[in-house]
């Protein structure tokens, strides 16, 4: 149980981190850039919100099968493959919410701060503090989606005991075996993890508010 929960957290956190690395620069560009292609990226993020994890899992599995184009890597049914799938699942959500957060700040704020005669470095810190709570919310949402989804984890990880079994795939297996008590146990742990993650996020937001 501990091992399964730990893998769930590790894979989802890695997927969220990579998703953020992909999405947040894009969100900055959408919110503050001038290029007409910004709309195209925003559309990609928004459409991606509806991307079913199982479709992502299928695409990742298809690419990583030994008979697939990336089969030579031999990484299907590893935590790495799961992280790859979850990164694709969460980056549109993180991107969309980050755009909302970044657009939420007063567009005249940079000019105002400049008018106060602050140094560039201090202006940057103040701006970062302004957007941090929104970005934390985006990361929390991404983590929640990653740890709660089952389709991508099952298809890319294979639910292998001791290797790629996470809370959601373990729940499905327990139900298939008629072990409903065990299934509810996994769900309870999942909810506990989300409660802790939310608590951490709220604390961070309160600190920067």
């Amino acid at each position, binding site marked *: 149980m501990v091992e399964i929960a730990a893998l769930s957290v590790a894979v989802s956190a890695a997927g969220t981190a990579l998703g953020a690395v992909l999405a947040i620069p894009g969100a900055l560009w959408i919110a503050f850039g001038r290029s007409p292609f910004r709309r195209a990226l925003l559309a990609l993020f928004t459409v991606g919100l509806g991307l079913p994890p199982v479709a992502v899992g299928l695409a990742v599995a298809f690419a990583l099968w*030994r008979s697939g184009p990336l089969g030579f890597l031999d990484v299907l049914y590893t935590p*790495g493959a799961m992280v790859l799938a979850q990164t694709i699942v969460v980056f549109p959500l993180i991107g969309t919410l980050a755009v909302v957060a970044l657009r939420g700040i007063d567009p005249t704020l940079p000019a105002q701060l400049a008018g106060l005669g602050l140094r560039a470095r201090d202006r940057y810190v103040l701006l970062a503090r302004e957007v941090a709570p929104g970005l934390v919310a985006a990361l929390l949402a991404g983590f929640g989606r990653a740890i709660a989804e089952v389709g991508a984890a099952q298809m890319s990880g294979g639910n*292998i005991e001791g290797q790629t079994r996470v809370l959601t795939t373990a729940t499905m297996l327990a139900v298939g075996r008629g072990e409903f008590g065990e299934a509810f146990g996994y769900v309870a742990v999942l909810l506990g993890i989300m409660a802790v993650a939310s608590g951490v996020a709220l604390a961070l937001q309160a600190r920067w508010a």
Partner: protein
Amino acid sequence: MFRHAFLSALLCLGLLPLPAAAAPPAVVLATTTSTQDTGLLDVLVPAFEKASGYTVKTIAVGTGAALAMGERGDADVLLVHAPGAEASYMAKGRGLSRALVMHNAFIVVGPPSDPARVKGSATAQDAFAAIARTGAPFVSRADDSGTNIKELALWKAAGVTPEGSWYVKTGSGMGDTLHVASQKAAYTLSDDGTYLSQRATLSLVPVVEDAKDLLNVYHVIVVKPIPGRVSDLAGGEAFASFVVSPQGQQIIRTFGRERFGRPLFTPDAGKGE
């Protein structure tokens, strides 16, 4: 800035597979949900890993999907139970060897009220004909699993084309399908191991068992590697040898005795078909 961050992200993604690729190669075992849902693999696979030093990646799918994985070279060894489909797989030249491992029995289960009056039928075929005649609900795996292939063969033998509102297709594994049948008070075909291991949570009773058309035979097949693709022939062969070895057969012989009061599978290695 955007381009820079994007490139670094791509780099991170590219680096991801490296630690996994450096790990020792693992044998991919494609097998059926019944071997996983009964818990047999939870005993058999660790014993093999301990005895051989190999790591096994067990992918539990239906027999049809397992054979398809073997055909594409996506698995090294298969543990499956659809002799007809296995024979055509071997005929395609995609298997290096195929050996008898064990059997248990299929079992027709249904609601205790037995609306189609099939309890005590001599064969499953007779029971299926009666179920279709009375229109009593029947739940099918409909997932190209070994059990599903067997079920379709039984309908064919009974001279019935199963369709209509009484015939429900779940597209799910054995455990899930049993629960659907239980909730719908319907009949279904199960391997007796999965039924036995889940009986406590089901309101289903055996209606036909020990019939001559209900034998459920498992074979292990070593997949022929496809040149140029990742494979682990030695690992696949090691697993196949292990399940038919005295140690593997002993695990199969005793599995389930403690928990269910009787073994769920009968080891058959070396016996004639």
